């Protein structure tokens, strides 16, 4: 695997520096600890939204910092959760007095580091809430396991909550909205090739010339199963049906009580998608797949939804949550209501998404 990089150890820093240089009108960057935030942060009186996770998923998250979306992003090393000191420093930098929402993808590393950051922020008197995204239907059960991973729904939640915060929703309302988005989003992905972590320069997994990996996460971790490569239509069907036929999903998550300063357990339940539902359909590329192929997937997906009486009222097609240069795609279907549609359409101005502004 060849890459446009210098020393592998400098990959994350140099990429972020390039990004900050390119978008100095929108974002500013801090090192030691590393975070990026809106150039106009802190916004007084506005709830601030922070996300973060391993690098290698670009443009997520740094590409979504800006007006109408994230106030700050904390990038870790490649595929490695960032550390609590980054999250705390970011919180201090963007806190406008209305509190902070951490949007956290459900991976043990992310969860634990954000939990530590939440405790640290509390100790410093910063009001933080903490919402998990766990939307990956490739992970079947949650009992005694880590539960579902956070994938495609993450950036949809960031957009919708970002718009809500911009409109003046208070912290609890933004957090409740984020939980609602998560409860209505489901994703599933496949890989045609492995990615290669710069520090290792070996493919994370080996795939035969005629194989694909089904039910992948976003870190090059192997998926649930390996299958013979299928035509795009069959892949689209398989992904779409995994989502459309996913049943009720129950699990217990930990949320933070910002008043009492402690964690509490909360049972959450996803309902299945059903005829008549309005959805946002998101076809995501894994980094090495051209957009022309994503449109072929979308074509079939639109067909399947139409046949089932599920209305695609918004869509999104592109490589937004990636695994370095991995080839493959994921589908995310998010059930929408009027509030979510309005917030989705609201203006956004970040390095990677810009509309209505």
């Amino acid at each position, binding site marked *: 695997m060849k890459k446009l990089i210098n020393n592998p150890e400098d990959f994350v820093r140099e990429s972020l520096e390039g990004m900050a240089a390119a978008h100095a009108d929108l974002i500013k960057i801090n090192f030691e600890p590393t975070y990026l935030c809106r150039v106009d942060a802190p916004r007084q009186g506005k709830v601030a939204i922070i996300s973060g996770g391993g690098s290698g998923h670009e443009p997520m998250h740094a590409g979504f910092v800006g007006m109408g979306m994230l106030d700050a992003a904390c990038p870790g090393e*490649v*595929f490695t959760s960032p550390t609590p000191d980054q999250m705390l420093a970011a919180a201090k930098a963007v806190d406008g007095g209305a509190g902070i929402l951490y949007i956290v993808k459900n991976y043990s*590393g992310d969860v634990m580091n954000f939990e530590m950051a939440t405790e640290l922020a509390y100790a410093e008197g910063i009001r933080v809430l903490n919402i998990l995204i766990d939307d990956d239907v490739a*992970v079947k059960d949650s009992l005694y396991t880590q539960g579902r991973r956070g994938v495609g729904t993450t950036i949809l939640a960031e957009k919708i909550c970002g718009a809500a915060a911009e409109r003046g929703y208070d912290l609890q309302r933004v957090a409740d909205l984020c939980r609602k988005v998560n409860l209505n989003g489901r994703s599933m992905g496949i890989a045609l090739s492995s990615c290669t972590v710069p*520090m290792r320069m070996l493919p994370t997994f080996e795939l035969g010339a005629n194989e694909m990996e089904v039910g992948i996460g976003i870190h090059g971790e192997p998926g649930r199963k390996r299958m013979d490569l299928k035509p795009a239509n069959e892949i689209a069907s398989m992904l779409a049906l995994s989502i459309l036929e996913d049943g009720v999903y129950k699990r217990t998550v930990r949320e933070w009580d910002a008043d009492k300063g402690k964690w509490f357990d909360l049972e959450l339940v996803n309902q299945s998608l059903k005829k008549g539902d309005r959805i946002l359909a998101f076809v995501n590329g894994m980094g090495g797949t051209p957009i022309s192929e994503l449109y072929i997937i979308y074509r079939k997906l639109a067909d399947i939804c139409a046949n089932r009486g599920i209305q695609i009222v918004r869509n999104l097609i592109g490589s937004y949550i990636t695994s370095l240069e991995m080839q493959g795609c994921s589908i995310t279907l998010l059930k929408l209501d009027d509030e979510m549609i309005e917030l989705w359409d609201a203006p956004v101005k970040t390095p990677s998404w810009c509309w209505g502004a």
Partner: protein
Amino acid sequence: MPNAQCPIPNSPCPMPINHYFNMNTEQILRWLQRFATKIEQNKEYLTELDAAIGDADHGINMERGFKKLLIQLPTIANKDIGSILKAVSMTLIASIGGASGPLYGTFFLRASSAVADKDELDEQDMLDMLRAGLNGVIERGKTQLGDKTMLDVLFPAVTAFEQAVDERKVMRDAMGQALAAAEQAMKDTALMQAKKGRASYLGDRSIGHQDPGATSCYLMLKCLYESL
């Protein structure tokens, strides 16, 4: 007085016999130094283990943290054991990231509280320290035994150490027993299906592979033993 003999020959030792086998600051530093070096040496091995069932970065993550630690060690050498471990914890938390960062960070943070202000640890102190660290890992990771994580090494090791201390084994022997348990437990993680961490997404495909975090945890205990 590391590994000193009982000061009064041919007489029942008035002090608990294991006093002379206490672990002092110098040994704690030696442990950390050794562990950091071991991580460096096993960076690729740990990463390969993680490649099989995770995301191929455990060695890289650990090495990032312990490289920082190596630089830091001289600056904290003249502190007490509690302060040293606290400083170690802060460095690891702020530099490892991933799942192992908060876990090793919490291990050392809790361990440090258990031995605050001490310059020397006897068997009971050591047990308190290890148990505090162990509990920290359980709480932070919400893990259970058999989930195929570092806990599956740490727990049997601490249990074996406790039993040996109950049997009034000296520090080095007790730790030897803990290490033997750890080694077996590490190998046994290969038989388990992962329930926590990235490997859990593999379902039964995780069976047959040794857990990377369990492996680094075994290395930590091995270095601890070798530093006594």
